[in-house]
C-alpha cells in the first residue's frame, strides 16, 4: 500500500469502487430518494426564483415603462425638473391614485386603482386589450365621455359590460375594453383593487387631484442616446435636484419590492428544502451504515490482503459519492423542469416570460447542498468502517460501531457541516433568518438525540412488566441497535416542522380573519378635503349613530435623512426598512393620539411654536437607532423638513386603527395643503350596513376613497393562504423525506426482527404475541416522538408568532390530535407492513445461517 503513488492510490480506489457498484443500487433506494427530493426542492425553488428575477431583468424596461422612472407624490414636476427630463429623451407621464368607481345608477361601487396615461403610453412593451384598440380609440372623448379599460374582475364586480359607463369622482367614463396585459403593472407595486386605465385628460375631469390627495405622478423616460448609463443619470438627477424628493428607478431595478419578496420567499423555501435534505441526511447515514455493515467481510478481507483501513473506507467513500451523484442528478433533472412547469402558474399572477428557465447556478447550488449533506452524514459511518478489524474473518468478535470514529473523520464531518451552514448563510438574503435556521437545526438534532436517549433510558429503567408482549416491546426500545434513535430523529424533525408551520399559518389566518377583524374599524376614508371634513363626519354620524369616527390630517412624506445623515449612506436594518422605503403617511397633532402611549419623552404643548418636533414609533425608533433629540428629515411636497424627536410612542399596529410612525408638531406643516383620513368603527354594522354606508358616502363624496377593512383583510387572508400553500407544499417535501427515512429505518430493523422472531417462534412465541409486541413498540416510539414533535413545533411557532410577528398566540388542539394520529399511523403502519413479512419468514433457512 505504501509503495503506491498518490495517483495510483486514487486510481485503485476508484477501480475498486466501480467494482463495488456492480451490486447495483439495492439498499440505496431511500438514500437516492432522500437526496433526490432535497436537491429537487432546493433546485426547483431557486430555479423558479432565478427565472422570475431573470424575467424581471430581461424585461426591465417594459416593467419599468422606460429606461428611467421618476416618481413624485402629490405634485407634478416643476419647470426646471420638466426641462431636465425632456432633455433626457421621450417622457411619458402617468398619474396613479385610488378611488371609487361607481355604476352610473349609483347602485354599487368598487375601489379601483386608477392609472391615467398620456398618448405615449407605453414607451416599451404593449398594452393588450380585448377588443384590441389604439390608445386614441380607447381613451378619447366621445360625446362627453372619455374611454376606460379595466380587467374582467371589475366588470364582474360591478356587473358591467363593454359599452357601460362608470362614474369616477366627478367624471364619467365609458368602459371600452378589458385589459389583458398591462406591461408596466409590476413596477406599480401590490394593488388591493382592480386597475382602471384612463387618459390624463379623462383624469382631469374627475377632480380627484386636489390639495393633499394621495396622487402619484410618474415620469417614464426613454433615453434619446445611450452615451450615459441610466444609473449615472439617476445619480446625476439626485445630485442636481436634492430637494425634489423624487424617487428614481432604473430598468435594472424595475420592481425592487417584487424582486426582494421573491428573494425572501425563495430563501425561506430553500431553508425548508434544506430541512428536507437534512432530514434525508439521516436516511443517508442509515443507508450508508447498513451498506457498510453488509460489507464488513469485504473490508476485513481488503485489510487482510494489505489495504489500510483508510483505503478501504476511501473505496466506499467513492462509491457513496457515486450513488449520491445519481440521486443529485435525479433531483437536478426534476428541478430543471420546474420553471417550465411553473411558468403557466406564474403567468397567472405575473406578466412575465419565465419559460426559458434553465438556471445552471441555481442547480449548482442545489447539487452542492446535496454533496455536502451526503458528506456530513456519510463520513461518520465511513469512519466507523475504517475501524473494522480483519480478525472478523477468523472469528465474530462482536464489533459494534457505537463509539466515535477516529478524529480525522469527525473533523472532516464537522468541516463539511460548517460548509453547509456557511453556504446557507452566504446564499441567504436575510442572514439572521439563515443563522436562526441553522441554530434551530443543530439544536433539533441535539435535542432529538437526547430525547431518543431519554426514551431508551426510561424504557431500560421501567420495572419488569408481566405482559410478555409489552416486556418485549420495552426491551426492543432500549436494546443495542434499537430503532428508537432513527425513528425519533427522522419522524421528530418532520413532525416538528409540520406542527410549527401549521400553527404559524393557523395563528396568522385567525389573527387576520378574527382578532384583527374584530378590533379593526369598518372603514378607512382617504382624501377627504379640509373644507368637507366636518360635513363628511356629520354624514357618517347620521349613517352610523353608534359608530366612532376618528379623523386626522394626512400628508405623504419620505424620510431622506436620519440624524443629519443621508439615507443612502446609512445601513438600515431589514426589520425597519419598510419605514424608510418610499413614501409614508404622516400627520400632525397638538395632543397625543388616543390609541398610543408615550413611552419616552414628553408631548409638546398644544400651542407649541418652536422648532419642528416629531413623535416617533418606539419600536421602529429603536430598530433605526434613534433616540430622543435625534433629528429626522422628511421630504413633503418637495420640501425637506427636519424635526427633532421629542418623544416615542408604543403602537399596536395590529389594531388597524389610525397609526402613524411619525406624528409631527402642528407648526411643522403650517400652511401645507393636505387632506384628511378618517375611520368609522361600528361593531353593530353588518355587511349590509357596511354596503349602505359605502353607497351613501360614495354618492355624497365621490372624490373620497373608501376602503372597507373586511375586504382588505379578505385580500390579505387570501394572500397569506396562497403563501401558506407554497410553504405547506415545501413542508410536505420535508415530511416525505421524513417518512422515507422512517420507512428505511424500519425496513433495516426488519433484518434483526427476522432473526428474533424465528428464535422466539422456535421457543414457543405465537404470531399474535409477536405482532402485539411489535405494535406496542411502534406505538410507544411513535407516541413519544409525536409528543416531542408537538412540543418542539409549538415552541417554535409560539416564538415566531409572539416574538417575530408580535401577534397574539393561540393553540389549536386539532393540530395536536392530527400530529399524534399521523405519527402513530406512520410508525405503526410502516412498522407492521415490514413485520408482516418478517413473521412470514421460514425458520429453517434463518436457523441454518445462525
Amino acid at each position, binding site marked *: *500500500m*505504501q*509503495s*503506491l503513488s498518490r495517483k*495510483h492510490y486514487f486510481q*485503485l480506489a476508484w*477501480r475498486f469502487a466501480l*467494482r*463495488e*457498484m*456492480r*451490486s447495483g443500487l439495492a439498499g440505496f433506494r431511500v438514500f437516492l430518494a432522500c437526496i433526490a427530493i432535497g436537491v429537487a426542492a432546493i433546485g426547483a425553488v431557486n430555479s423558479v426564483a432565478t427565472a422570475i428575477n431573470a424575467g424581471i431583468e430581461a424585461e426591465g424596461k417594459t416593467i419599468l415603462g422606460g429606461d428611467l422612472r421618476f416618481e413624485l407624490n402629490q405634485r407634478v414636476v416643476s419647470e426646471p425638473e420638466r426641462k431636465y427630463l425632456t432633455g433626457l429623451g421621450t417622457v411619458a407621464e402617468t398619474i396613479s391614485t385610488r378611488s371609487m368607481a361607481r355604476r352610473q345608477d349609483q347602485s354599487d361601487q368598487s375601489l379601483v386603482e386608477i392609472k391615467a396615461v398620456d398618448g405615449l403610453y407605453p414607451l416599451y412593451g404593449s398594452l393588450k386589450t380585448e377588443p384590441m384598440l389604439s390608445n386614441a380609440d380607447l381613451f378619447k372623448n366621445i360625446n362627453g365621455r372619455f374611454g376606460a379599460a379595466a380587467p374582467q374582475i371589475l366588470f364582474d364586480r360591478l356587473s358591467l359590460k363593454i359599452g357601460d359607463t362608470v362614474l369616477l369622482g366627478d367624471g364619467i367614463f365609458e368602459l371600452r375594453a378589458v385589459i389583458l396585459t398591462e406591461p408596466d403593472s409590476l413596477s406599480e407595486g401590490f394593488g388591493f383593487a382592480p386597475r382602471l386605465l384612463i387618459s390624463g385628460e379623462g383624469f382631469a375631469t374627475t377632480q380627484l387631484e386636489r390639495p393633499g390627495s394621495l396622487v402619484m405622478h410618474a415620469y417614464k423616460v426613454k433615453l434619446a442616446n445611450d452615451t450615459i448609463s441610466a444609473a449615472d443619470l439617476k445619480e446625476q438627477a439626485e445630485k442636481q435636484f436634492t430637494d425634489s424628493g423624487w424617487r428614481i428607478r432604473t430598468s435594472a431595478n424595475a420592481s425592487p419590492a417584487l424582486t426582494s419578496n421573491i428573494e425572501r420567499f425563495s430563501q425561506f423555501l430553500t431553508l425548508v428544502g434544506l430541512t428536507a435534505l437534512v432530514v434525508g441526511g439521516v436516511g443517508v447515514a442509515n443507508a450508508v451504515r447498513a451498506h457498510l455493515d453488509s460489507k464488513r*467481510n*469485504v473490508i*476485513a*478481507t*481488503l*485489510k*487482510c*490482503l*494489505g*489495504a*489500510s*483501513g*483508510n*483505503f478501504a473506507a476511501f473505496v466506499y467513500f467513492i462509491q457513496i459519492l457515486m450513488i449520491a451523484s445519481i440521486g443529485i442528478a435525479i433531483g437536478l433533472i426534476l428541478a430543471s423542469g420546474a420553471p417550465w412547469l411553473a411558468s403557466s402558474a406564474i403567468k397567472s399572477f405575473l406578466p412575465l416570460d419565465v419559460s426559458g428557465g434553465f438556471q445552471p447556478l441555481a442547480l449548482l447550488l442545489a447539487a452542492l447542498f446535496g454533496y455536502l449533506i451526503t458528506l456530513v452524514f456519510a463520513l461518520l459511518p465511513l469512519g466507523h468502517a475504517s475501524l473494522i*478489524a*480483519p*480478525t472478523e*474473518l*477468523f*472469528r465474530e468478535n462482536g464489533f459494534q460501531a457505537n463509539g466515535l470514529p477516529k478524529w480525522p473523520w469527525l473533523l472532516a464531518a464537522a468541516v463539511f457541516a460548517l460548509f453547509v451552514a456557511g453556504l446557507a448563510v452566504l446564499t441567504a438574503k436575510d442572514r439572521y433568518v439563515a443563522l436562526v435556521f441553522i441554530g434551530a437545526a443543530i439544536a433539533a438534532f441535539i435535542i432529538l438525540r437526547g430525547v431518543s436517549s431519554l426514551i431508551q433510558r426510561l424504557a431500560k429503567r421501567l420495572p419488569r412488566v408481566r405482559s410478555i408482549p409489552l416486556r418485549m416491546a420495552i426491551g426492543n426500545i432500549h436494546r443495542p441497535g434499537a430503532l428508537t434513535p432513527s425513528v425519533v430523529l427522522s419522524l421528530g424533525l418532520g413532525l416538528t416542522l409540520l406542527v410549527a408551520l401549521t400553527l404559524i399559518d393557523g395563528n396568522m389566518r385567525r389573527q387576520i380573519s378574527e382578532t384583527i377583524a374584530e378590533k379593526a374599524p369598518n372603514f378607512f376614508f382617504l382624501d377627504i378635503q379640509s373644507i368637507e371634513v366636518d360635513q363628511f363626519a356629520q354624514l357618517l354620524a347620521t349613517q352610523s349613530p353608534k359608530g366612532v369616527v376618528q379623523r386626522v390630517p394626512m400628508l405623504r412624506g419620505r424620510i431622506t435623512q436620519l440624524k443629519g445623515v443621508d439615507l443612502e449612506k446609512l445601513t438600515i436594518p431589514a426589520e425597519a426598512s419598510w419605514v424608510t422605503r418610499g413614501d409614508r403617511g404622516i400627520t400632525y397633532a397638538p395632543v397625543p393620539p388616543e390609541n398610543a402611549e408615550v413611552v419616552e419623552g414628553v408631548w409638546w404643548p398644544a400651542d407649541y411654536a418652536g422648532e419642528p418636533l416629531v413623535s416617533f414609533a418606539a419600536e421602529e425608533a429603536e430598530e433605526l437607532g434613534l433616540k430622543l433629540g435625534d433629528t429626522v428629515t422628511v421630504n413633503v411636497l418637495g420640501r425637506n423638513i427636519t424635526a427633532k424627536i421629542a418623544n416615542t410612542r408604543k403602537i399596536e399596529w395590529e389594531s388597524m386603527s389610525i397609526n402613524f410612525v411619525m406624528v409631527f408638531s402642528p407648526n411643522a406643516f403650517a400652511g401645507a395643503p393636505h387632506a384628511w383620513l378618517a375611520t368609522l368603527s361600528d361593531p353593530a354594522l353588518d355587511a349590509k350596513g357596511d354596503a349602505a354606508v359605502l353607497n351613501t358616502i360614495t354618492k355624497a363624496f365621490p372624490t373620497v376613497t373608501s376602503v372597507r377593512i373586511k375586504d382588505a383583510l379578505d385580500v390579505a387572508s387570501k394572500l397569506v393562504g396562497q403563501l401558506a400553500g407554497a410553504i405547506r407544499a415545501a413542508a410536505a417535501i420535508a415530511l416525505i423525506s421524513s417518512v422515507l427515512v422512517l420507512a428505511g429505518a424500519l425496513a433495516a430493523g426488519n433484518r434483526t426482527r427476522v432473526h428474533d422472531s424465528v428464535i422466539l417462534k422456535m421457543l414457543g412465541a405465537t404470531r399474535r404475541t409477536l405482532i402485539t409486541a411489535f405494535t406496542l413498540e411502534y406505538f410507544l416510539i411513535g407516541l413519544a416522538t409525536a409528543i416531542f414533535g408537538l412540543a418542539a413545533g409549538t415552541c417554535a411557532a409560539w416564538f415566531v408568532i409572539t416574538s417575530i410577528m408580535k401577534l397574539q398566540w393561540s393553540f389549536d388542539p386539532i393540530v395536536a390530535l392530527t400530529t399524534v394520529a399521523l405519527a402513530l399511523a406512520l410508525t405503526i403502519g410502516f412498522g407492521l407492513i415490514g413485520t408482516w413479512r418478517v413473521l412470514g419468514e421460514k425458520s429453517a433457512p434463518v436457523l441454518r445461517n445462525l
Partner: protein
Amino acid sequence: MPDLNKTDMAISLKNVHLTLGAGASKVHILDDVSLDAKRGESLGIVGPSGSGKTSLLMVLSGLERPDTGSVKIAGKEITKLTEDQTASYRGKTIGIVFQSFHLIPNMTALENVAVPLELAGHPDPMGRAREELAAVGLSDRVTHYPGELSGGEQQRVAIARALAPEPAILIADEPTGNLDLVTGEHITNLIFKAQRERGMTLLLVTHDNGLATRCDRQVRMRSGRIEIAETKTKVIA
C-alpha cells in the same frame, strides 16, 4: 518475496502473551507462546476449539497485536509496525487462506486474485492473477463471480489470491472445513504442492490430525499454550 537469505527463520515468536477483554471478562488467549518455523517448513497446528490456534495465526499475520513478546516474520519485528505498515507488509509477505474463502462477491475470480497485487502496486496485476488462476486449474473461470463458482472452485481462487504476491509464508485456517472430502483432498494437495514448489513456510490450522501429519511438524495447542511440538518421526518439544 522478501529476502529470506539473511535468515533461515521465517517465523520467530518469543514469549507471546495475548489477552482479550478486560476486568472480570479478561481471557488469556495466548500464554507465553514461543515458536520458530524455518523457511520452507510446514507446520500443522492442531488443538481443541478455544485452544488459541486461530489467535496464533492472527498474531503471526499481524492481525492481532500481542500484549507482550516478540513476533518476527521473515526477520522483521512486526509488533513495532503501525497498523498500515503491518497491512502493507502482510500483503507482500503472508498469504492467507480462510475456511470461508472470503472472496469479494462483486469481483470476478480474476479481480479477486489481482486485489493483493494491485494493493502492492504490481506492474501487471491481471496478467499475474491469470497465471495464478491457471496454476490452480481455473483458466476457464476467470470472469466468473464467486457466486457462480462451487465451494471448491472458490477455495482454489482464494489459494490463487493468497499465492499471487509470492508470499514467504502461507497461512491456512481450516481450508477444507467447508468442503466435502474429495474436494478437500484436492485443495490440500494444491496447498502442499504450492508450498513445496515455492519453498514457502506453511502454517496449517486444522482439526484433522491426518491432515496435520502431512506437515513437517505438528504443534498441539491447549488453553493458549503450546502443549507439544513433534516432527513426523519424533517429539522435539
